[in-house]
């Protein structure tokens, strides 16, 4: 093999590498510099960016031998390289495990800024961003937004929406120029407590900006083997035979596993076990991507090469590839063991008398909408590592049971499904979570977990299965494409009298969470409005497309597009302002939803509408002042604009600008009668620290920061003394699935209440020491003390002791008794000396909900949002750009405003993708979209100017009043954009994503409505 000599992060290496090796592989796998990420393997995402002789390259397709003699810099070497350039460099040293502030100061300003500005979420893209941004700051000490966007154009982030990244790059530049890093600016929010409500950096942020964070593919074990999966070529085919002899004959191939090797249940599934571990036998392959065999070999490359030697004899079956055809009686049936043909579920909402409602309406609008199949495109492809029971590894220790390392949204469901398919008791399997590079709903179903566990069991070795990006795209469940016909009736005064809707959801080959998703689409199909009557029918259908399941918004993204488009059409027909029409019908306290739920509290929708309306008005005012000042004549339309019409078009050159608005709501929690709980364990230590544990998933949203804040708040501990452990089925109790915007509420409550219970336990022992009632013991910044004010209150009043203990958090300036205080550490020692456990578990049960159809509370909380988008449409090309977004989100309470803003900005940009760029294209059951280069998610150039308002209308049961935000932030934006397009150029886009080609031709032809995308057949 050729010798490669290069200097990496200042250290010279000489390695023997195969001629075909890429630089990213050498850095990651040979030199173990795992901060270099591989997201796509096609120079598309930029996660693998490193500097070679000072120039940035995508190392994933950069032949390693091109780096012969070069100086290579990776994220791991950045801080040290920076420090050596500084005059005071000699004095600064990295303090691992030290104080966050000290450590931040020792980093490169870009790393520091990414931490302080919340520009790292899941963190998988972060090393690439920082390295690429470094090339900009090296050449340009004060870059503009446009220059930052030019530099980071092909570096993709799926979490942040890029706003915080742009701000972080500017802040780093400022620090490099002036020595001072500016503070991030945040939306107004209610007065914070000690930790709750504080914009604290993520606990794992430094690990993520330095490349230390370990994602699943960053783990390697001694003796590890690699698995590669053979997948069906056909959308529907019976597997007649599999001949793997040629593959097995290859030296280095350990085995080829198929259905006959599965010792337990042959199928898995979160709701219904209908998804075969391997297609074969009674279970045909039902989509292109169904697994047929798994090769286990000495190297990943060998495993993939061996796949080509497996011969599969198929009997190709007729396929059904759209949900409407799937419902026809003569359609090929996917699951003959099911009762209703291809019908996964018929979901119904009945509310009042729609016939009477339409009879009473003055205006009736009916349209049919289409939404596309879309892809999560989390930057980290799926990876599972199975480690057999009894395996000892020098780095990761002894494994007493079969263990799967994986970044998964539902660790306990993984454990149960692995155990069931391997024929083992649940307790014989452990899921150990790794740092996770994004999920968005796409890492809820089983990916490689069962295969990795099975392969480890069979070979007795650790086995890693890392999906290629192509495989990830092809295999994992997507967002349901839908066809939604919706009819809305309203009276002249704007009162909505009736809504009738019919939804078809393409659930693909397997149940996944399809029924739940389409239920949410159905129950939210009246929008956040009070409607006189409703009749909604939804058909969730099996087809031979990729399974569809959870994806941020969980069905509501789709129905909101239809609902909010119809709202604007009705408003226009009534001659009403779109905001006024929404306000007229908006949900408010006391309103009843179409499913029969009375909203008793925490409905911040009207405030959201008001905030957004004011902001658009303000924009117009500024615009008018500006054009008045400059005497600019762009506004023939501007000067003639009726002052009340916020949605009037504004032409500047070839472009027409207009605002569009949409509202939305989204449940927090599972709802629909599903028992919903999270359990947390707290342990306090004699060194003054505490650890909070729950299996809930950290996938980038900063749940760990929320849990740390709740715990520190309740225990009065400095937050740096609180650690958080998540996603381990042996060490953390079940927090339930990380889905449905539920974890801040559920696990936040579990952590808060576990910590509170521990506080009470500690109050007991400290009170005994000082001989006072327990309720006067307070905790603050690591001290336990007698609160003299409380004590006086208790002594002064005969029965007024609750006062102090009920609101211990309100006292901003605690009256700490110097003589009667001990450290938290001593309090823990006392607890242990008294023989009481320093560990306890709290199982938090959310309020009970009712199933659809039963009336009553279907959900225990809803979040609300209003989004407005200012778009420009180029009338010569049909190109659409979102220039500005104003949003307001009612989230109950902002536990961490920095992370909350990150969720909002990221959700909005993901929604822009849903409206304008994203479409996972499948033709007759065969994906046309095979590579990331064919799936355009929004890049930094799509990021608009944003103004985001936080509305905090608290929900009584939520932790400190909080409810969910993860999904609502990406829901109303798509229809806000299409409404804006209509306001700009008079063309109504009934299908997403908006196609500039079709839009331009529609404008040219004077067509008012666009009901199809590229290649869509006419609707029935």
């Amino acid at each position, binding site marked *: 093999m050729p010798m490669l000599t290069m200097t990496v992060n200042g250290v010279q290496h000489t390695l023997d590498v195969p001629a075909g090796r890429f630089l990213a592989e050498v850095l990651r796998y040979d030199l173990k510099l795992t901060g270099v990420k591989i997201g796509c393997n096609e*120079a598309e995402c*930029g996660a693998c960016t490193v500097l070679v002789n000072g120039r940035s390259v*995508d190392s994933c397709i950069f032949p390693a*031998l*091109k780096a012969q003699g070069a100086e290579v810099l990776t994220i791991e070497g950045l801080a040290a390289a920076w420090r050596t350039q500084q005059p005071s460099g000699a004095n600064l040293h990295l303090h691992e495990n030290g104080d966050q502030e000290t450590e931040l100061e020792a980093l490169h300003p870009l790393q520091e800024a990414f931490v302080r500005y919340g520009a790292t979420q899941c963190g998988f893209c972060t090393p690439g961003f920082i390295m690429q941004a470094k090339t900009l700051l090296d050449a340009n000490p004060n870059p503009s937004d446009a220059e930052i966007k030019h530099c980071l154009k092909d570096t993709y982030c799926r979490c942040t929406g890029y706003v915080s990244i742009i701000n972080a790059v500017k802040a780093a530049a400022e620090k490099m120029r002036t020595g001072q890093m500016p503070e991030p600016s945040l939306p107004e929010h209610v007065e914070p407590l000690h930790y709750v409500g504080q914009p604290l950096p993520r606990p794992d942020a430094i690990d993520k900006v330095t490349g230390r964070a370990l994602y699943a593919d960053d783990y390697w074990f001694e003796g590890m083997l690699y698995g590669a999966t053979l997948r069906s070529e056909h959308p529907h085919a019976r597997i007649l035979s599999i001949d793997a002899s040629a593959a097995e004959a290859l030296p280095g191939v350990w085995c080829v596993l198929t259905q006959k090797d599965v010792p337990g249940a042959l199928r898995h599934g979160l709701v219904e076990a209908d998804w075969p571990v391997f297609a074969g036998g009674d279970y045909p392959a039902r989509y292109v991507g169904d697994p047929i065999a798994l090769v286990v070999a000495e190297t990943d490359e060998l495993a993939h090469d061996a796949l080509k030697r497996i011969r599969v004899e198929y009997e190709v079956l007729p396929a059904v590839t759209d949900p409407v055809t799937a419902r026809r009686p003569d359609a090929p049936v996917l699951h003959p063991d099911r009762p209703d043909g291809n019908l996964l579920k018929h979901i119904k909402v009945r509310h009042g008398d729609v016939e009477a409602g339409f009879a009473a309406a003055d205006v009736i609008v009916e349209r049919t909408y289409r939404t596309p199949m879309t892809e999560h495109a989390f930057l980290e492809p799926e990876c599972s590592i199975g480690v057999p029971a009894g395996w000892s590894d020098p780095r990761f220790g002894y494994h007493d049971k079969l263990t799967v390392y994986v970044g998964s949204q539902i660790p306990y469901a993984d454990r149960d499904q692995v155990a069931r398919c391997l024929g083992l008791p649940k307790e014989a399997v452990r899921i150990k979570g790794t740092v996770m590079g994004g999920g968005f709903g796409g890492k809820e179903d089983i990916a490689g977990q069962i295969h990795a566990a099975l392969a480890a069991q069979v070979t007795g070795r650790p086995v890693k299965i890392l999906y290629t990006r192509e495989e990830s795209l092809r295999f994992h469940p997507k967002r349901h494409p839908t066809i939604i016909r919706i009819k809305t009736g309203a009276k002249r005064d704007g009162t909505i009298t009736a809504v009738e809707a019919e939804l078809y959801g393409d659930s693909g080959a397997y149940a996944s969470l399809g029924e739940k998703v389409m239920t949410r689409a159905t129950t939210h199909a009246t929008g956040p409005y009070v409607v006189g009557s409703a009749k909604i029918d939804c058909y969730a259908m099996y087809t031979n497309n990729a399974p569809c399941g959870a994806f941020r918004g969980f069905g509501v993204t789709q129905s909101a597009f239809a609902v909010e488009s119809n709202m604007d059409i009705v408003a226009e027909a009534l001659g009403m302002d779109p905001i006024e029409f929404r306000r007229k019908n908006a949900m408010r306290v006391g309103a009843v939803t179409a499913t029969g739920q009375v909203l008793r509290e925490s409905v911040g929708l009207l405030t959201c509408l008001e905030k957004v309306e004011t902001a658009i008005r303000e924009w117009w005012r500024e615009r008018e002042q500006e054009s008045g000042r400059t005497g600019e004549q762009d506004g023939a339309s501007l000067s003639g604009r009726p002052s009340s019409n916020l949605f009037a078009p504004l032409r500047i050159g070839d472009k027409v600008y207009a605002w569009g608005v949409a509202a939305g709501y989204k449940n927090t929690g599972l709802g629909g009668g599903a028992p919903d709980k999270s359990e947390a364990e707290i342990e306090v230590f004699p060194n003054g620290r505490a650890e909070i544990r729950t299996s809930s998933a950290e996938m980038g949203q900063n749940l760990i920061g929320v849990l740390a804040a709740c715990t520190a708040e309740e225990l009065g501990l400095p937050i740096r003394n609180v650690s958080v452990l998540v996603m381990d089925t042996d060490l953390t109790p079940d927090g339930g699935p990380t889905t449905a915007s539920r974890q801040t509420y559920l696990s936040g409550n579990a952590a808060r209440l576990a910590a509170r219970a521990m506080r009470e336990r500690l109050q007991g022992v400290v009170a005994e020491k000082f001989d006072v009632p327990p309720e006067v013991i307070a905790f603050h910044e690591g001290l336990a003390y007698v609160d003299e004010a409380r004590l006086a209150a208790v002594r002064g009043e005969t029965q007024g002791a609750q006062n102090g203990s009920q609101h211990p958090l309100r006292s901003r300036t605690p009256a700490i008794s110097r003589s009667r205080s001990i450290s938290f550490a001593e309090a823990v020692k006392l607890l242990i000396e008294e023989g009481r456990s320093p560990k306890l578990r709290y199982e938090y049960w959310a309020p009970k909900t009712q199933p659809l159809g039963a009336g009553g509370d279907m959900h225990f909380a809803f979040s609300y949002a209003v989004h407005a988008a200012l778009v420009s449409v180029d009338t*010569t090309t049909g190109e659409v750009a979102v220039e500005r977004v104003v949003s307001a989100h009612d989230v109950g309470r902002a536990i961490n405003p920095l992370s909350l803003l990150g969720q909002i900005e990221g959700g909005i940009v993901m929604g822009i993708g849903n409206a304008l760029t994203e479409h996972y294209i499948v033709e007759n059951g065969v994906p046309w979209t095979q590579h990331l280069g*064919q799936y355009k998610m929004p890049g930094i150039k799509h990021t608009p100017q944003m103004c985001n308002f936080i509305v905090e209308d608290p929900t009584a049961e939520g932790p400190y009043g909080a409810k969910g935000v993860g999904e609502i932030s990406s829901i109303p934006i798509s229809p806000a954009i299409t409404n804006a397009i209509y306001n700009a150029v008079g063309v109504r886009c009934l299908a997403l994503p908006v196609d500039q*080609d079709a839009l331009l031709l529609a404008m040219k032809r004077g067509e008012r409505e666009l009901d199809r995308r590229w*290649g869509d057949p006419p609707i029935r």
Partner: protein
Amino acid sequence: MRWQAYHTPATIDEALALLSRYGGAAQLVAGGTDLILDVQQGNHATPQALIDVTTIRGLDAICEQDGWVVIGAATTHAAIEASPLIRRYGTALAESCSVVGGPQVRNVATIGGNVAHALPAADGTIGLLALNAEVQVCTWNGSAVECTWQPLLSIFAGPGKNRLAINQMIGAFRFPMRTERTGSAFDRIMRPQGVALPILGVAAQVTLDENGERATAVTIALGPAGPIPFRATESEAILLAAPRLDEEAIEAAIVAAQRQAELRTSKHRASKEYRHEMVAVLLRRVLPKAIERAQSRSTFG
């Protein structure tokens, strides 16, 4: 499977001798951002060996030579984008190279690779074509290398196919260093979904007469408008014949380009009708910009 050997020759002679020795089993590579992806994604057979031309001494040079700007085949898009010489004398090329991929790609992808890949909509190729560029083809005759200059268009055989034999490679490109009254520009339209290739790219170069009114030379390149990169010769003729380069002349040139170009619908990328419109939109942007630049570099009597 990947390639079994990776060669880093220091001279063209060495590269071509190797290439000939492999007899078709080896492939020249420069930045690799197209070729390696094609191999990885199964669109190109895996070669037995890769011969990296970026290690050839001087192959990445940009220089001025006898009234030409000469660009080595292994010059990266980033280097072209940043070169003052090219920004001044070949603005269209600098502009076209600056929009290819992101900086990470432009730091390694070369102009020689862009041309050799022979895609009818390749940005760099369209930029070169508008500058009336020539390509230097180097041929190994068994004992030595012979280099000849030929028109750029002559090396394209079809979409993704060039006419280079297994003993040939591109050495350099050159375009005339027109000093006065000449300007060029490039623009393109992308689709936000699906394919990463442009819907349409257009570049043009105009040289004005001493009065700054008539064109004495015009080149217009656009793509995709046929199996190989396309010159809108009929539009060029109309503009050359026009008494002045006003809106009327440009509109006539647009009609001619729309007539001459073989536009077609390509799936998930663009419809033929849309491309037809974009020919007009882009020419309306690019021609006035090229003319304006020509005027600003004029020394009129």
